[in-house]
């Protein structure tokens, strides 16, 4: 059965399904209860599941995560919401030093089945601290898994799969895409959590994206098609671990790869992807792997963020550059 939902509503419904299925699933975060979250992702959940399962926390991210670590050790499955990407840094110590290491530290005896939801990325005209893309910090940390959904169906299933995972998962939500609608198959998941997907096939160049940039990449592919160029779009979905097989297969066919993310290019996910593609597809490459991303500045003020964020034109300019080699 398919339903048309926004990404936000799909996340809300997915959380509800998980809470119905497992009474150990808890939701905790700032304004997630009574307000239903600033983006309404947890809307109605406190009313239906009670304030001991949907918990409004103090404005202290380190405390939210630290508390969740204890709950997870005791067998709960906490789903923490960090209200905005830029608020996660107070919790960074807990995430890197405790969340990522507990399983290893305990020789595998203790697992932390917790999810840390982070609305990330810009494009909503918000103030400082509200538009960042911190995924590389987490993907770089062994012991964490990092995923990002880009469409309602993935939102619905990936949040449930993340909650079912016994490993801690950083769940990055494309906040500027919360209101984009799509079909959700509520009967079965189309892919396991850590698999990449070819979202649009094409033979001329491969554009790799995740989260909010998947929409941008797809728009770029549509525009390129009008110019007679077929771009293959790959949605990574999982940023750690990376599912590279579909990427390699695609690049071997097209010979060209462009990686797109909002985060700054320098030492971003695109750098790792470029390195791996170059190692594995060296003989097939018609041009270097190119990266499109944010600039190496702090995220700018809202009025000029459109100059900062990669858009359709920046993606296609990179594709043009690739064909220039």
């Amino acid at each position, binding site marked *: 059965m398919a339903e048309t939902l*926004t990404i936000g509503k799909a996340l809300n419904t997915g959380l509800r399904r998980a809470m119905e299925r497992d009474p150990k699933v808890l939701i905790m975060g700032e304004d997630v209860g009574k307000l239903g979250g600033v*983006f309404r992702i947890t809307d109605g959940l406190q009313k239906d599941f009670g304030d001991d399962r949907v918990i409004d926390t103090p404005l202290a991210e380190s405390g939210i995560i630290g508390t969740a670590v204890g709950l997870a050790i005791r067998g709960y499955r906490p789903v923490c919401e960090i209200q905005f990407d830029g608020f996660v840094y107070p919790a960074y110590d807990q995430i890197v030093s405790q969340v990522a290491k507990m399983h290893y530290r305990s020789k595998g005896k203790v697992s932390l089945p917790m999810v840390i939801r982070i609305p990330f990325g810009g494009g*909503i*005209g918000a103030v400082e601290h509200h538009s960042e893309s911190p995924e590389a910090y987490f993907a770089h940390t062994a012991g964490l898994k990092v995923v990002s959904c880009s469409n309602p169906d993935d939102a619905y299933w990936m949040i449930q799969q993340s909650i079912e995972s016994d490993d801690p998962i950083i769940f990055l939500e494309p906040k500027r895409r919360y209101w984009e609608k799509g079909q959700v198959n509520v009967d079965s998941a189309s892919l396991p959590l850590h698999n990449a997907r070819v979202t649009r096939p094409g033979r*001329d160049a491969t554009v790799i994206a995740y989260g909010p940039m998947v929409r941008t990449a797809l*728009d770029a592919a549509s525009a390129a098609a009008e110019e007679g160029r077929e771009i293959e779009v790959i949605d990574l979905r999982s940023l750690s671990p990376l599912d590279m097989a579909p990427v390699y297969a695609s690049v071997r066919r*097209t010979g060209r790869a462009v990686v797109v993310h909002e985060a700054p290019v320098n030492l971003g996910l695109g750098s790792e992807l470029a390195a791996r593609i170059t190692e594995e597809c060296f003989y097939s490459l*018609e041009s270097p792997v190119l990266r499109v991303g944010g600039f190496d500045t702090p995220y700018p003020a809202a009025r000029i963020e459109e100059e900062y964020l990669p858009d*359709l034109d920046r993606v296609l300019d990179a594709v043009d550059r690739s064909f220039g080699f």
Partner: protein
Amino acid sequence: MTRVKEFNLPDLGEGLTEGEILKWLVQVGDTIALNQPIVEVETAKAAVEIPAKWAGQVTRIFHPEGTTVEVGAPIIAIDTDPGSGALPAPSAASLAAVDVAGDAPVEPGLIGGPAPGGRTAVLVGYGPKTTVAKRRPRSAGAPVVPDEPAPVVEVVAPVAPPPAVAAPAGGAVLAKPPVRKLARDLGVDLTGLTGTGPNGSISRDDVLAATTAPAAVATKPAVGREERIPVKGVRKLTAENMVASAFTAPHVTEFLTVDVTRSMKALDRLKAHRDWKDVRVSPLLLVAKAVLLAVKRHPMVNSTWAGEEIVVKHYVNLGIAAATQRGLIVPNVKDAQELTTRELADALTALVSTAREGRTPPADMTGGTFTITSVGVFGVDSGTPILPPGESAILVFGAVREQPWVHKGKIKVRQVTTLGLSFDHRIIDGELGSKFLRDVGAFLEDPEGALLAWS
């Protein structure tokens, strides 16, 4: 722009939905300055003063102190230009349309609803914009590869936008990127090459080899209505020789039809002779013998035009045109004038068989002085042969046929052939050519008589 602007209660925290008016700091009729505190509002997080967004005169205060107001609802109206006279009576429509374009409220509780500028309303920020999958118009001459240093050239004319690059063939060709670069620089098409590098990739050597052997690619047989055969070897030599001869020596060709019945009978007797038991004989032998005797009688036929002088040779290197698999070759029997008939027969047999086997040494193909070409073996009667370069005459010998022929006053069936002689008119006039041809014909009509008479 509207003179009177309404100011809406903003979201003073993040995710706040309402606030209580604690205290108004201004009254209707007050003239206020930009950023002057106008109201104190308490939210769930804190009590804050709100500054005036515009300078002007307060015309209306919407809510008394103590009222809880939803975020986005108007709280105060300000006449931004009070000096310009009385206000026109506001119509209902103008009230409804107050400043929608600039600062329309985010309707509280409608997160995700429409917001100004094609955006979606959110609690924090202007809200995300809806985008379209359309590429912006690109400026003319925008560099496709910005890595390259900008050329120091003054642009005097608008540059056309870069043409779309053709789609690649796909991952079929394996080559290291630097090899691809090399191939492109050398103009080598990688798709035509076989890779000998790692993983079957095309190596640097493969690319270089392709540049040194372009013919290998060029002579690929074209499937279709035409075939292209490279001109080389025997064909090329033949062409050069024929062109050189045809356009330097003015050719004349004469014909003579003769009754060779006696020659054919003489050949039969020769074959039956016990000394000639194992010798292969053919009409060519008698033609050769006839030529040698005729040359002796007319030496000028066996000569070379050398510009300032004519070189008359007292030896005959007798060339025989032979069709072989490699093409036409003309080996010659050196000093044929010295040979007995039997030696001549052996020499001709060896010459032809060696040629047919393709083993003729180069020395046998140079230095010819007179040539016989036998088109009779192809079933035709004659032709107008082109002189081998450096020779002044060539005899063409056609098919021997049984034909009605007047013999001793009666029509009889006789064996008849046609002789043709092409000669270089610079050396040989019609009289000499005719005499020579007639002598050859006379020998073939009566070989025994000619031998007795001339040698």
